[in-house]
């Protein structure tokens, strides 16, 4: 620190900003009136919270669906009177039918992957904190941002509606493999529509829902990228951004390139269903009474390619923001700079890049060319390398720290543990040979639930507990938070580790019941154990909801910087004013994780704190002055 040079040269000379770009597309005053303020708001903070609430609603639905699934698997054929009221068709007399089970599977998967794992970390936290962490006053395209949210919301409504239309919810699984999803109606598969009901059936609404979601996501993604590249405040070089920003950036790039492919695939599948085209349906198929002569020439494998071309990057869309939050929280509460910041950034980009090269590992046994499978397999295993770098660096961050075990820290540690537990089995699944037995078993379920499901959710919990004071100006209850952490952490291990051994024994996924198979009898006690663990874990989650809503109004007031953190969001009030920094334009002097700096007065140095030598240089430049060159001079108009 002693040899620190003056930093103000880092900033562009004022002259360069004489012609400051006045593309103040994002300029808007604080709204008045309830609707503009809370419903159709263009404020990224409100939109972020809207996304979070949407995700919280979706995760509640998704979680309850999983409880229903476990109940059906453990006690098949039992009548649950309550169910009959909700689903008079799917659960006649309260007994779940197999097609009802499949629609639970489909809805659970779609709900969780799209409306929770994509929505909350990116749309929610990303929207709220990306502009603040880079010192911008809003996103680059606020109106587009609002549209993204409301389009997502329409997609959500479409998906919910899919469960209640005549014929029942979609039963094609979240991957919607044709030909089942394309001609299911002609084969009388429930939820797939029929000749009389060409349009309003579960499967069509499912396609519409994800197509809408694709549009919303890619619009959101381009907004994120533009904001991050163009709107960083002075001194905020890319290598000074918090790792959270890096993760949202990488995620946005993935979303921008992956979602359009799913959109195209969705359009084709929709045409196959409604216009009798044959993109994914080959010829010579029969329903047992007649040949489906209207279809010929397509290939189900084409869908799988298009779907997984999106689907694999999607996995990283779900997990990368969690990685960012974890790095951020670990560093803050270990009171220590992130270990290997640059390596973390490279690893994140490497994961994102490799994520595009490996979709074929979902398709080893799908009839894909075995040579291609081999190449995909080798590439898949190389993803282990950047993942391992990240894990090592997280542990390295803790090494020699002064760890404060706050609730967000507990969840971040939980993330690391779960990420390792879920990630390592990828080494097994990524091998072509081993996939011969492991494909489509509970081993796969254990793997991806741990790594992209639960680990990502732990990232979200860490983010919620960490940023709640900033978002609502009040602390969440630490005591309740810790009580929430323990059953959740123990519970998810109790649920998903047994999944692996179920898979080794050979339990296939998407089975409505295991009664048919003798070789699965040995697993009966494990199935029961998992179900009990699920019920306890899910019950514990209500503590979180209670804590969340209780704290919004009754929580202990939080100061501007309750965690003694360093990044820009903590240098404004809690909650931040409408334009985030009250007209100030911040200048960034250092990297994001300057904890335990020798010689500094506190054990943390904010990004906005100038070095001692420059105290006389005004650190904060008032908005409207001639050197506000960050595209934020909208306020002087």
């Amino acid at each position, binding site marked *: 620190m002693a040899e620190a040079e003056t*930093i103000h040269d880092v900033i562009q000379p004022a002259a360069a900003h004489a012609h400051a770009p006045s593309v103040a597309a994002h300029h808007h005053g604080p709204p008045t009136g309830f609707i503009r303020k809370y419903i159709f708001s263009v404020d990224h903070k409100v939109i972020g919270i809207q996304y979070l609430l949407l995700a919280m609603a979706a995760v509640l639905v998704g979680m309850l669906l999983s409880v229903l699934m476990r109940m059906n698997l453990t006690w098949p054929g039992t009548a649950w009177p309550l169910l009959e009221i909700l689903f008079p068709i799917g659960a006649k007399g309260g007994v779940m039918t197999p097609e009802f089970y499949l629609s639970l599977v489909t809805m659970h998967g779609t709900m969780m992957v799209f409306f929770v794992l994509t929505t909350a970390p990116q749309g929610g936290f990303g929207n709220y904190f990306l502009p603040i962490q880079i010192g911008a006053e809003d996103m680059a395209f606020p109106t587009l941002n609002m549209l993204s949210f409301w389009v997502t919301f329409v997609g959500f409504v479409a998906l919910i509606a899919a469960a209640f239309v005549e014929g029942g919810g979609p039963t094609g699984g979240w991957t919607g493999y044709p030909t089942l999803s394309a001609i299911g109606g002609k084969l009388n598969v429930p939820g797939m529509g029929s000749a009389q009901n060409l349009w309003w059936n579960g499967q069509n609404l499912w396609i519409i829902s994800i197509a809408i979601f694709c549009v919303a996501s890619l619009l959101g993604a381009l907004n994120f990228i533009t904001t991050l590249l163009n709107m960083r405040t002075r001194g905020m070089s890319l290598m000074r951004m918090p790792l959270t920003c890096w993760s949202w950036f990488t995620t946005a790039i993935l979303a921008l390139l992956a979602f359009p492919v799913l959109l195209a695939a969705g359009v084709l599948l929709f045409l196959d269903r409604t216009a009798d085209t044959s993109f994914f349906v080959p010829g010579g198929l029969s329903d047992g009474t007649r040949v489906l002569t209207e279809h010929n020439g397509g290939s189900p494998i084409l869908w799988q390619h298009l779907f997984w071309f999106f689907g694999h990057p999607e996995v990283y869309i779900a997990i990368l923001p969690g990685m960012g939050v974890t790095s951020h929280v670990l560093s803050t509460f270990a009171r220590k700079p992130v270990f290997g910041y640059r390596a973390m950034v490279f690893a994140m980009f490497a994961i994102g890049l490799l994520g*595009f090269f490996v979709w074929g590992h979902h398709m080893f046994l799908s009839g894909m060319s075995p040579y291609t499978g081999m190449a995909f397999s080798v590439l898949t295993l190389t993803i282990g390398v950047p993942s391992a770098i990240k894990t090592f660096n997280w542990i390295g961050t803790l090494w020699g720290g002064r760890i404060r075990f706050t609730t967000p820290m507990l969840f971040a540690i939980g993330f690391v543990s779960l990420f390792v537990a879920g990630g390592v089995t990828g080494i097994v699944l990524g091998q072509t040979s081993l996939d011969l037995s492991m494909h489509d078993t509970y081993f796969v379920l254990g793997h991806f639930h741990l790594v992209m499901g639960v680990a990502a959710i732990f990232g979200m919990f860490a983010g919620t507990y960490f940023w709640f004071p900033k978002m609502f100006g009040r602390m969440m209850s630490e005591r309740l938070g810790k009580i929430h952490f323990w059953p959740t952490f123990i519970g998810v291990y109790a649920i998903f580790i047994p999944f692996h051994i179920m898979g080794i024994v050979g339990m296939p996924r998407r089975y409505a019941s295991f009664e048919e198979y003798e070789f699965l009898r040995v697993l009966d006690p494990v199935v029961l154990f998992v179900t009990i663990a699920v019920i306890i874990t899910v019950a514990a989650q209500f503590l979180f909801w209670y804590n969340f809503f209780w704290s919004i109004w009754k929580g202990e007031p939080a100061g501007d910087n309750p965690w003694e953190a360093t990044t820009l969001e903590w240098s404004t009030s809690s909650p931040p004013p409408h334009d985030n920094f009250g007209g100030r334009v911040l200048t960034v002097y250092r*990297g994001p994780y300057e904890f335990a700096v020798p010689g500094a007065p506190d054990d943390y140095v904010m990004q906005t704190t100038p070095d001692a030598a420059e105290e006389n240089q005004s650190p904060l430049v008032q908005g409207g002055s001639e050197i506000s060159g960050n595209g934020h001079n909208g306020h002087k108009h």
Partner: protein
Amino acid sequence: MRPFDQPVVEAGRVGGELPSSGSGGRLRAFAPLRRLTADTDLLLNGLCVLFAVGFIALAVRSAAMSGAFISTDSLFMTAVCLMLAGVFMVSPALMLWERGLLKMPSFAIPEGEALIDEGPIHFEGSMRLFLNVLGGLLVLTVIEVALAYFQVPLYIMLTILIGLSLIKAALIVAYFMHLRFERMSLVLTLIPILVVCICLLFIFFPDSTRSLNLRTTRAGAVATPEAR
């Protein structure tokens, strides 16, 4: 280009960077490990280079061994080997870069260049230039249509058409969409992303030809036991 990076941080200010090899002294906690690894640094990077060379050799072998190189399988295998080679080159390249042995062009704007809207707007290209481009596009289109008129064999036609279309697209992007007059960094961001992603989609094709050969509706799709 130093992608996504700025030397301000590189120089080891209080940014969240790794210490460069010259200033590792800050790492008191890892002193023993550092001593251990000091000598291995070069060795490990050498190892990386060896791996990379190995993969390049494999790629060359894959290219040389395959009878028909223009099969997507063989192209893909070669590409994978080359990519793995690239992965292993990252660490040595970073080392060279760190030691200043590897320079990358910078994309800084000259001082005082006008920004977006205020002041005179920078717009390059004249009517003449654009007319020339339009003329070029028209000529290429006429060639394409002529190919169709003279009934060139399908695969030759496909190759030429794709080639000409790429040239046309490049002309449009470069001149009409003005990318040629944008900064190099924008070009280097947008174009490789698209090229890589679209090339990735080509991996579908081994399966389309495979599907053709395995079609149930095709006569003789399955070799009967006695036929073998």
